[in-house]
């Protein structure tokens, strides 16, 4: 130890000024064993009170409100929603895009930041992936019932049948089916595979027999041998690459649902990218909403450090800036194209009737509030981050509403103009899906490894065989 202290001191002298020092991945470092204890502590401990306080209402929404809304809608028909001509896509599609969006940041954090070797992602990656998995589930719910006859959903799969029906692969809605299902499967698979080594940790720590049984089953016999890690790491890189592609693909396809049509306000070549970035932005907002309380209540302040929160906030800012750019481009192209319909639609987003305030809301929140994140003080203030996260989610929800309803309610013929007011069943379904999401998320938080234990350990200096703290001898 003495030798390495000398080296550390020497390095300290050469290091940049304190303000430019790199923050450690995990604070208050006490070695690998203590880290393992810390990270598995919450999943093994008693269920705290705050958990019940959050869980019971979420479970109520998921177990009572959601089934009620679903059963009533499926048995009665889509007429129970506010959808009608000319607004045939209402809250169901708005919420669908919103949920898909929430999912994206999770994949981006865990996959893209892995590929760019951002070690800090190890602490929040798992929480982000879980967010992805559960919100894609919620997203998938909407198109399945939006079709109106949910029992005919099998039409969307290539099963030979006497109807002579094959899926119509030229339809963007069909691509949605592929995209959302693939996204769900790949993100679940990615999430579960990432957890295998941590399941092994839980297995080895398990005291009770049922617990040992469950985690033995989940860990699938993981031993952590070098050969296993060797294949595992390769598979992980491949999955990360694929997930990064998926981030771009899934939302692009959702964007194509809109822009392949010729409706003013929908048809723009930037729409695929627009939806990708909007999704990521919204997801980062949700990430802030989830991480701020989690790190406090689960006692993870030293793991999910303020530096990590700062980085998530910066990523939020980046995606928010791109969104602002795309808004600007949308309005610019509406003007530049000289198309009277386009100009009309975009003028009416801000100065029209019925929904004008929503247009201003999304500019106020998505464009203006996001700019607060330029300031270091705001990024260091957890309350502010939480509020901004909530606002971004509201703002992005509004954005989808403006896109979906704003372009539909006044189409090319004034005789067709109408309004869209969501009914209580629209709202109930949305609340139910929120409840289901939070219920599943809370279950995950309590019972599964919330932080990628193995990955975090590998990212600490104690896990680095070339670092003095990792046991390396000699000069670095």
């Amino acid at each position, binding site marked *: 130890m003495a030798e390495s202290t000398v080296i550390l001191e020497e390095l300290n002298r050469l290091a940049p000024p304190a303000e430019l020092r790199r923050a450690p991945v995990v604070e208050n470092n006490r070695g690998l064993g203590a880290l393992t204890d810390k990270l598995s502590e919450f999943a093994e401990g008693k269920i705290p009170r705050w958990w019940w306080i959050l869980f019971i209402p979420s479970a109520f929404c998921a177990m009572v409100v959601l089934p009620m809304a679903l059963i009533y809608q499926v048995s009665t028909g889509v007429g129970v929603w506010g959808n009608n001509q000319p607004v045939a896509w209402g809250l169901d599609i708005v919420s669908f895009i919103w949920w898909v969006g929430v999912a994206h940041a999770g994949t981006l954090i865990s996959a893209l930041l892995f590929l760019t070797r951002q070690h800090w992602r190890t602490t929040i990656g798992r929480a982000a992936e879980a967010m992805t998995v559960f919100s894609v589930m919620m997203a998938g719910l909407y198109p399945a019932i939006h079709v109106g006859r949910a029992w005919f959903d099998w039409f969307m799969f290539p*099963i*030979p*049948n*006497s*109807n*002579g029906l094959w899926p119509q692969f030229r339809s963007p809605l069909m691509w949605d089916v592929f995209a959302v299902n693939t996204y769900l499967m790949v993100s679940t698979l990615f999430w579960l595979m990432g957890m295998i080594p941590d399941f092994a940790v839980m297995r080895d720590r398990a005291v009770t*027999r049922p617990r040992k*049984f469950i985690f*033995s089953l989940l860990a699938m016999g993981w031993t952590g041998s070098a050969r296993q890690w060797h294949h595992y790491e390769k598979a992980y890189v491949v999955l990360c690459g694929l997930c990064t592609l998926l981030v771009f693909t899934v939302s692009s396809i959702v964007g194509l649902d809109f822009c392949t049509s010729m409706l003013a306000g929908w048809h723009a070549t930037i729409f695929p990218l627009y939806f990708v970035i909007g999704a990521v932005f919204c997801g980062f907002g949700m990430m802030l909403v989830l991480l701020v309380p989690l790190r406090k209540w689960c006692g993870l302040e030293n793991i999910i450090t303020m530096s990590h929160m700062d980085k998530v906030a910066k990523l939020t800012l980046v995606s928010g800036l791109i969104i602002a750019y795309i808004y600007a481009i949308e309005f610019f192209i509406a003007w530049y194209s000289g198309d009277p319909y386009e100009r009309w639609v975009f003028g009416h987003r801000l100065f029209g009737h019925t929904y004008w305030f929503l247009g201003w809301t999304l500019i106020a929140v998505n464009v203006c509030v996001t700019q607060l994140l330029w300031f270091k003080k705001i990024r260091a203030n957890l309350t502010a981050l939480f509020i901004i996260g909530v606002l971004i989610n509201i703002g992005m929800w509004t954005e989808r509403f403006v896109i979906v309803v704003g372009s539909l309610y006044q189409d090319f013929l004034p005789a067709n103009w109408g309004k869209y007011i969501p009914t209580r069943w629209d709202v109930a379904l949305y609340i139910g899906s929120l409840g289901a999401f939070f219920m599943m998320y809370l279950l995950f938080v309590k019972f599964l490894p919330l932080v990628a234990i193995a990955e975090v350990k590998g990212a600490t200096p104690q896990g680095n065989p070339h670092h003095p703290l990792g046991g390396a001898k000699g000069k670095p």
Partner: protein
Amino acid sequence: MIFPKWTNQIPFLIPIGLALVGGAVAAGVTVYCTPKNTRVGYQPVQPVPFSHAVHAGQLGVDCRYCHSTVEKSWFSSIPAASTCMNCHSLILKDDPRLALVRESFTNNTPIPWVQVHIVPDYVYFNHSVHVARGFSCVECHGRVDQMDEVHHAKSLSMSFCLDCHRNPAAFIRPPGKVTDLGWQWSTNAAEAAKLQEVNGKNFVHDWRVESLQSCSACHR
């Protein structure tokens, strides 16, 4: 250690199980969820024991006598009680089986017939355009003139419609013979097929039969 050694065999069974389940689901859907299973053979009990076999078959009443709008409207009408009473005010006047018809006639209330053939709301089907261009009732409804109680004879699935739309010449016949359900070009099967081929092509051409295959032809 919680698992005995034999459990290491389980992974090899998983893919087999998955394949079996997947295959079973697909096969089950194919067999049980499609109109061939869900529609064909449907034969509800009607409120009045009306026999098409007697009326259309034995007595030779033309379809259009009762379903009078079939040539002019997208909808083939169900006869009002007054149509029945044209004859039944004289024939089988007091038959108890016709009590409901008489009641309907006097009270001006509809007879609660149970609809047998139905296309979903998302399908637009026009009877008149088919009948007027020489497509017989029998193509979709089967030999109703031989049915005591009407049952669903054909699947009316999408591919059923498209089979005809793709090759109308194989099904078209002289418009006068549309309601003659047993009509054939010839009693000789080979000759009938030949005549169908030659005449079918001519009819389709001469009468400008446009059997559309685009989605919006039916799903409009």
